[in-house]
């Protein structure tokens, strides 16, 4: 009897003990291992003899995110009278050089008491990456003279290097915005969707049963997928954050949300939000879209499938699943860029109204023009970025480029129409401001319909639909 009671008690103690011991592990697995975090992932590569235990790697991509951030910073702060050779050289360094000597400082984000960051130099994350080598090689019809993507950025950098603050008010070019937004497309989006998630997700290219390159700890497919994730720019723990938190991380306003491992500093490799993921967060926090988590979730799901193959060649069904997820990622990514085009076309529309008022009243032009050129730079940069993807929607792009022009319509109605052999802008008389405003409306219609946009920020005609709704749609058969 005593034995039986003892056995029962023992059983209960064991059950409770096991449960209490398991609970903390379950909690840990909920935050690290249940698919909410991108990485770490085990080494699956057959025959790997090195010491690494994590096959996840996208350091080169984060280095490029930091170079992009820093490049924008220099362009906007640059001073052509700088005795060290002017900002042009410095800008080109961030665009073209590989930080082999670990001498490239991270200019954005910089450590502060409110938002301390772990790394100070780009080389602390990766020492062999640059932006120029990964830029879109195709001819760009959205910019004069059919330059390649890299040449367009180089051209803009050279122009920006000669102007204080990077804004050419004569021709209407806001280079910090143009360079930043176009680099996001021509390097980050282009590499991810027109390379890593495109041809590198076919069976024969970068197979999963071989290392990505000799001596690597990861397979071809693992690393291709990781690289695309790095270009997306989301923090590894994005799925645990709200869109607003992710947005505030990019804005360096929410250390608590960023510092996932609670070591008191933000690891710029894993814990920061960059570029496209930042824009996705910005649209999602409005509540109408879910780009950030759709894309990040698809990246995590895809990585799980690749990891589960355990270093073997991906089966055709796994390959199909991966390609489907790549499609989800790139179509949503494309929509994020299209949402930005839509948003800034709306901003430009509003700004043009203020430019018209300034022209009429004879005051306030500087302020109105500055805002207009900033928003136009963002609009043009994103419109060019949209064209850096894998899809060739020539008709849509042609219409977009035609309506936008190569430069903004200036208050004196002049507009850049080309570039001469010496690299100077050629200008001509453009349409009226009212017509150019109409073009912005048409750009919103074109992009909004073509990409089935939902966030539709700054919708210039959105108020009409809301007003009609308020007035009550009269679709009933009634006499008066």
């Amino acid at each position, binding site marked *: 009897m005593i034995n039986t009671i003892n056995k029962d008690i023992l059983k209960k103690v064991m059950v409770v003990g096991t449960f209490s011991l398991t609970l903390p592990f379950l909690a840990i697995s909920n935050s690290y291992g249940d698919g909410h975090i991108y990485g770490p992932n085990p080494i699956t590569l057959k025959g790997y003899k090195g010491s690494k235990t994590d096959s996840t790697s996208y350091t080169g991509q984060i280095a490029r995110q930091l170079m992009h951030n820093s490049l924008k910073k220099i362009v906007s702060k640059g001073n052509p009278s700088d005795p060290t050779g002017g900002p042009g050289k410095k800008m080109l360094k961030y665009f073209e050089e590989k930080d082999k000597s670990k001498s490239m400082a991270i200019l954005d984000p910089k450590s502060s008491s409110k938002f301390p960051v772990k790394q100070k130099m780009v080389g602390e994350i990766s020492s062999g990456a640059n932006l120029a080598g990964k830029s879109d090689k195709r001819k760009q019809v959205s910019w004069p003279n059919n330059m390649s993507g890299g040449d367009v950025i180089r051209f803009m950098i050279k122009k920006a290097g000669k102007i204080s603050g990077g804004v050419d008010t004569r021709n209407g070019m806001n280079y910090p915005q143009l360079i930043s937004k176009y680099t996001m497309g021509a390097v980050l989006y282009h590499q991810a969707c027109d390379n890593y998630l495109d041809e590198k997700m076919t069976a024969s290219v970068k197979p999963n049963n071989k290392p990505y390159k000799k001596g690597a700890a990861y397979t071809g497919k693992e690393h291709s997928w990781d690289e695309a994730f790095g270009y997306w720019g989301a923090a590894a723990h994005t799925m645990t954050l709200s869109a607003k938190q992710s947005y505030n991380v990019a804005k360096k306003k929410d250390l608590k949300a960023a510092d996932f491992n609670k070591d008191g500093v933000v690891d710029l490799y894993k814990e920061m939000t960059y570029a496209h993921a930042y824009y996705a967060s910005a649209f999602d926090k409005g509540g109408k879209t879910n780009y950030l988590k759709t894309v990040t979730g698809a990246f995590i799901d895809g990585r799980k499938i690749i990891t589960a193959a355990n270093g073997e060649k991906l089966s055709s069904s796994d390959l199909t699943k991966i390609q489907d997820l790549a499609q989800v990622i790139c179509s949503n990514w494309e929509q994020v860029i299209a949402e930005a085009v839509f948003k800034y076309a709306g901003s430009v529309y509003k700004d043009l109204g203020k430019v018209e008022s300034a022209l009429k009243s004879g005051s306030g032009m500087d302020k109105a023009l500055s805002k207009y050129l900033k928003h136009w730079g963002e609009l043009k940069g994103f419109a060019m970025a949209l064209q850096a993807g894998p899809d060739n929607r020539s008709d849509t792009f042609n219409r977009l480029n035609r309506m936008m022009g190569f430069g903004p319509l200036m208050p004196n109605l002049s507009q850049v129409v080309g570039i001469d052999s010496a690299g100077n802008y050629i200008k001509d008389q453009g349409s009226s401001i*009212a017509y150019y405003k109409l073009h912005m*409306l048409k750009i919103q219609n074109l992009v909004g319909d073509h990409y089935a946009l939902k966030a539709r920020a700054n919708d*210039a005609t959105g108020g*009409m639909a809301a007003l*009609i709704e*308020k007035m009550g749609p009269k679709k009933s*058969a*009634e*006499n008066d």
Partner: protein
Amino acid sequence: MDQFYNFIDFLTSNFLDPKKRVFLGYLFSGFLIAFLWVLFVKKISFKQTFSYIFDKRIYFAKSAISDYFLYAINLFVMIIFSPILLSQLTIATIIFEFLHTQDFMIPIENIFVVSVIIPVAFTLCYFIVDDFSKFLVHMLMHKIPFLWCFHKVHHSAEVLTPITVFRTHPIEGFIFVLRNAITQGAVIGMFYFISNGNIDLVTVLGANIFSFCFHLFGSNLRHSHINICYWRWLEHVLISPAQHQIHHSVKKIHHDKNFGVTFAFWDLIFGSLVFSKINQQIKYGLSKKENYIKHNIFQIYIFPIRESLNILFTIFKKNIIRLCNFFHVSVFKFKKGF
């Protein structure tokens, strides 16, 4: 069961929406006005007033019952066809975009004008333009034989109840949707442009303030047997219920009169205004010649289509003969040739 509740919800939606004329609140205010009118102007007892207003011979007349059926069936017809009908947004966008190509009208930047004057002006302007377009379309429905085929469904009502407003052929319903899309779209497009998108509607309970007042002060009595008259001077400005009841009269002398909805001055301008008389006795419906539409739902839907097609065919035949005469082609030879 869910479908049943959805159906009930669907049927009752108009009665719970203050943007609709038959909103319960407006029906209540209308009957209250009627009650006070009969009690104090006609000076009959409380009990008699009650039985006069809620006369079951009216609300359960064959004509009224067909109105109820038409209301329910038309709801479904309009739901099915509404996605393909021209929307206000399309017209508003066209007007808004067109205004960017001209110079005579420019957006207003003044904050006071945009925030205070524009909403009031927009609300009033829309109400007036909407009312005029209703007058115009109504007049055309009477004057053009092809359109009259459909509008006579509304005039075939032999008793008037607030639900008679829904006694409408669906084709006429589509014409009204088109009218609404054009007027609402044009006014919105124009005001949206001049205010740089900063317009709003002045509302009460979500309804245009002017529509709210119009309905609150007895718009439902237009389609009723309560013949409330206004002072003569007011009947120059606003259409009284009794004036609209004249519009429904069988008498030839009353035909094509009082087309207006809210304002009477449209009729005054176009020479179709008739004033009401206290205690006027009016027989509603169509003249004997046209009164082939009975209160059979099938006939109500089909007869106007058949009649309108006959009109179109007659016009077509007449024009073919005219064309043949013009080109000196003998109709006989033409026929023989074939």
